Every structure is written in structure tokens, then in C-alpha cells.
């Protein structure tokens, strides 16, 4: 009897410790975020106060107004330009990735052709090629194509990524073949089956892959830093760093910039967190 009640006590204590640990971790993640958001709404005088201020005494939108209305650099640019560039490049590239990789994934999952296994593993080996090895040759390729300082350099290379092919293949493999057989009997062509049977069924997978691709391209830093060099072409992450280098002494503006550029991805994440979590847990991709 006594050992029983001790067991229950032990269990309660360990549950308490678990929650305490998770809460500390949660606070470590949240606290810097709250601080940043707080500062972005503070006038400069309050930011500079010591000890550190967390809650804005008199919230103001000045920093946000400033960051959207200042002319960045010599050209007549605003943050909207970089927001637009990021949106433009990322959405075109994402659509391209979805079309190209879902077709290839379908071929690997559903069609028989000589050399399939070999090709799949050959392409898959590209997974293991570290990014640093591709940086310089890809840059030289962009130069040869005349794509330096153009958005082509950001839009097209992601279409070569193997992740989408792998991801879509896994999904297409899981669809019961009876559905396809019915379409074959109806006389549909390979493309017809793909378009009318598999693509509609794969909508959730396409959406998940789309979110992943979008986040990945949107957040990229090194590649756009290397291939773009004029202010009006830059994407938001790179533009922000370059721009803030000059504004580093205006803390409120810097923080407003960080808030503005993380808001879109955080909104996408919160809306689609279930799909994102599930996909990460199932495939092991999407990390840093």
C-alpha cells in the first residue's frame, strides 16, 4: 500500500518536473521574441533605457512607419520593394518546383521504365552533396547564363532539388492502385491518369511540399547574397541585413525590420503547423 502511494507521488513529481522543464524551454524561446516585438513598438528613448525595457510604456507605430517610408539607399526604394521581390521570386519558383517534382515523383512511383531504380538512386545521391560545394560552380553558371543580378538566378535552380521528387513519390506510392486501374479501363492516357486521378488526390501533399518550398526559398540567405548585387533586386532577408548595417544605431527601426520580415513566415507556419509538423516527422527534412 505504502509503496503504491509513493509511486503515485513519484509520478506526480516527475510530471511536475517535466512541465517545469518544458515551461523553461518555452520561456527561453518566447522571451527574446516578446522583447523584440516590444522594442519595435517603443520610441528610441525607452529602448535606450537601462535596465532592459520589455513592455512599451507608450506604444508607437513610428518605427514601422519609418521602415516602410524611408528611402533605403541611394535608389528610391522602400521595404515594399524587397517584400515584393521575395514574394515574386518565391511564388514563381515554388509553383515551378511543384509542377516539375510532382511529375517526376509520379513517374518514379507509378510508371515502369528501364533504368528506373538506377536513376532514382543516382538522382538521390544529390541529396548528399553539401551546399558549399555547389556555391562557386553555380555562381559561375549564373555568370555564363548572364543571370547575375537577375531574379532568374533565384527562381530556376531550386527546380533541381530532389526533395520534392522524393516527397511526391512517397505520396503517390501510397495511393491504392485500383483507382488508377479504373482510369486505365476508361482509356485515360498516362497524363490523363496523372491529371485526373493522382493530382486531385495529392492536393494535401502538394500543399505541404509547397509550404516547405516556399519557406525554404523565402528564407535563403547565402545564395541571394552571392548572385544579387543591386539594391533594387534584393530579397527581404538579404536586403534587411544590408540595410540594417547602415541603420544599426536606430534600434527601434532594426527591430521593426525583424518583425516585419518574420511576420509572413510565422503566419504561414501557424496556419499550416499541423501539415509542417507531420511532414517533418514523416520525412526527416526541413531542418537547419
Amino acid at each position, binding site marked *: 500500500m505504502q509503496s503504491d502511494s509513493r509511486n503515485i507521488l513519484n509520478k506526480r513529481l516527475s510530471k511536475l518536473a517535466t512541465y517545469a522543464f518544458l515551461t523553461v524551454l518555452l520561456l527561453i524561446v518566447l522571451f527574446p521574441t516578446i522583447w523584440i516585438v516590444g522594442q519595435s513598438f517603443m520610441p528610441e528613448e525607452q529602448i535606450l533605457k*537601462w535596465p532592459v525595457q520589455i513592455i512599451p510604456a507608450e506604444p508607437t507605430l513610428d518605427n514601422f512607419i519609418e521602415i516602410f517610408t524611408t528611402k533605403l539607399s541611394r535608389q528610391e526604394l522602400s521595404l515594399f520593394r524587397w517584400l515584393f521581390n521575395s514574394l515574386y521570386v518565391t511564388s514563381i519558383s515554388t509553383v515551378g518546383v511543384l509542377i516539375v517534382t510532382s511529375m517526376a515523383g509520379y513517374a518514379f512511383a507509378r510508371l515502369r521504365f528501364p533504368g528506373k531504380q538506377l536513376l532514382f538512386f543516382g538522382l538521390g545521391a544529390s541529396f548528399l*552533396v553539401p551546399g558549399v560545394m555547389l556555391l*562557386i560552380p553555380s555562381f*559561375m553558371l549564373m555568370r555564363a547564363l548572364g543571370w547575375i543580378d537577375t531574379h532568374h538566378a533565384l527562381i530556376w535552380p531550386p527546380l533541381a532539388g530532389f526533395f520534392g521528387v522524393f516527397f511526391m513519390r512517397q505520396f503517390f506510392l501510397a495511393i491504392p492502385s485500383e483507382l488508377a486501374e479504373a482510369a486505365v479501363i476508361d482509356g485515360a492516357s498516362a497524363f490523363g491518369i496523372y491529371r485526373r486521378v493522382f493530382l486531385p488526390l495529392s492536393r494535401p501533399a502538394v500543399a505541404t511540399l509547397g509550404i516547405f518550398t516556399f519557406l525554404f526559398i523565402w528564407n535563403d540567405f*547565402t545564395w541571394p547574397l552571392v548572385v544579387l548585387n543591386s539594391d533594387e533586386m534584393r530579397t527581404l532577408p538579404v536586403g534587411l541585413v544590408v540595410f*540594417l548595417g547602415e541603420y544599426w544605431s536606430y534600434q527601434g527601426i532594426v527591430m521593426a525590420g525583424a518583425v516585419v520580415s518574420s511576420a509572413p*513566415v510565422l503566419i504561414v507556419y501557424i496556419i499550416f503547423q499541423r501539415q509542417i509538423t507531420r511532414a517533418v*516527422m*514523416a520525412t526527416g527534412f526541413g*531542418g537547419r
Partner: protein
Amino acid sequence: MTSKSAAGASGTISNWTLTNKRREALAGYLFLAPYLFFFLVFLAGPVISAFVTAFVEWELLRGTYRFIGLENFQLMMEDDLFRIALGNSLYFAIMTTIGNVIVALCAALALKSIRLGHTIFRVVMYAPVVLSISVIGIIFKRLLAPFGLLNGIFELFGHSGFDYLADPNLVLPSLALTTIWWGFGFPMLIFLAALYAVPEVLYEAARIDGAGRRQILWRVTLPLIRPALLFIIVTQFIGHIQVFGQAYIMTNGGGPGYSSYTIVLHIYRNAFTYYHMGYAGAMALTLGVVMFIFALVQFRLLGRYTEY
């Protein structure tokens, strides 16, 4: 429909399946063609030219391009900055990988054992992963500044704190902590998935055999999630040894001095500041090939350990 049944009627069965097979193969290649085009141009091409670039002297500014054999690699051996940068990257990658694995594993174990609030904890802890390095860099450059948040917390305890990013001994651990904050959510989810995959019966059996909590962790849980552990350790290490953005943004490209000067910064600077494409290419190839082999070995090991 009509064309297919016509073909079936006119030829023998084997003939019919043959043309059908050919059609399917043709369709397969056609479906693959667009992806293959991009793969060849933007992945296979650069991989091949990476091997060429490493063996040439290629000065973009002077326009020289000539084959020099192993000279770039010789140069690398004599380059002090290369050695410093490699050491820094290794140190950073080891710290970050170990830190990430420990934090992520603890978080995953904790998450698995609770139900109430599970989603909110998980969602918040993964959230930083979706942010870009520029946002992370900006936030933490502020946070770690002499009058930043972290020293503000030290102030509460009457300690004046540190100048994290200006102290040669603190700068790399600070970048590692930043990176762990940014990224531990990812290995956490991978570990969580692995933990859910362990059959509950095994825990029960261990408990019936009288195993304590700690014993279960070391003897049951960890061995069973070893594939996930190995996968995370190797991919994290490969990813973090290529650290670039953190130092580029937070320490103005490797400061103070060369204390946080990483190998990818060195490659970046040689290639895109000095335009020594050949030399930078040789360094990138060396790092790339070593990491590739590392990844390959990992997948062999994974194959061996997955059966349980």
C-alpha cells in the same frame, strides 16, 4: 479506349503488352524530362565543374584560367587562415550538434510524456526553425550586445554580464547558442517521431522486469531510437560545419579578429571578394567531398542499425 482495344484485337496478347510497356516507358521518361533538365543544368553540371575548378588557377578579375594540378591544394595546406577557419567551424559544429541533440532529446522525451499542452509547447518550440538567418542574426546581435537582453537578465542578479560577440573566447559559443535556439525544434520533431515509433510493449516488458526510469532510458529508449540519433548527429554536423550567415551577420564576417572566421566565410571571401575562384573552389571541394563521404558512411550505418 478505341485505339487500345483495336491494338489488342489486331495483334497477339504479347504484342499488345509490349507496345503497352513501351508506351508506359515513354510516358515515364516524358514525365521525368522536365525535372531531369533542371537537375542536369543546375545540379549535375555544377557538381562536375566543382571538380574541374579545384584544379585550375582561375582569377576572375585578371581573367586567367589555366590548369595547375594540385597547386590549389598545396596552397591550402600553407594557408594559416584556412587552418584557423577550419578549426573554428569544427569547434562550432561540435558544440552546436551536441547542444542541439541534448536539448532536442530532452524536449522530445518531455513532450512524449505529456498530453495537456503538448501542441502549444511543440508549436512554439519549432517556430524559430521557420525564421531566416537574417532575422535570427539581427535579433541575437541585439540580444547579446553589451546592453542587450541577456546582460539585462544578468543585471537582475547584480552581475554586469559579458560582451559576448566581442570576446574571442565567448564568440563561438555565443553563435552556437544562437544556432541551438534557432534550430533545436527540428531534431526535436525527428526524435519525437522516433519515440512514437517505439512499441509500447517494450516499455511495459522492461517495467515488468523491474527496470527503473533511468535504465529504461539507457537500455530501451536510446538504443531503439539510435537510427534517428545517428541521422541527426551526422546531418547536424554536416549542416553546421557550413556555418556562414551567423558569423556574416552577427560578427561582421568573423570578428573579433578571426575568432569566429569560419571555413565558408573563408571560401566566400576568396571567391566573391578576391575572385580567386580556383582556390576557393578547391577548398569547397575538399570540404564537400569529406562531408559527402561522411554522409555516405552514415547511410551505410543506418542501413545496418535499422532492423530491430
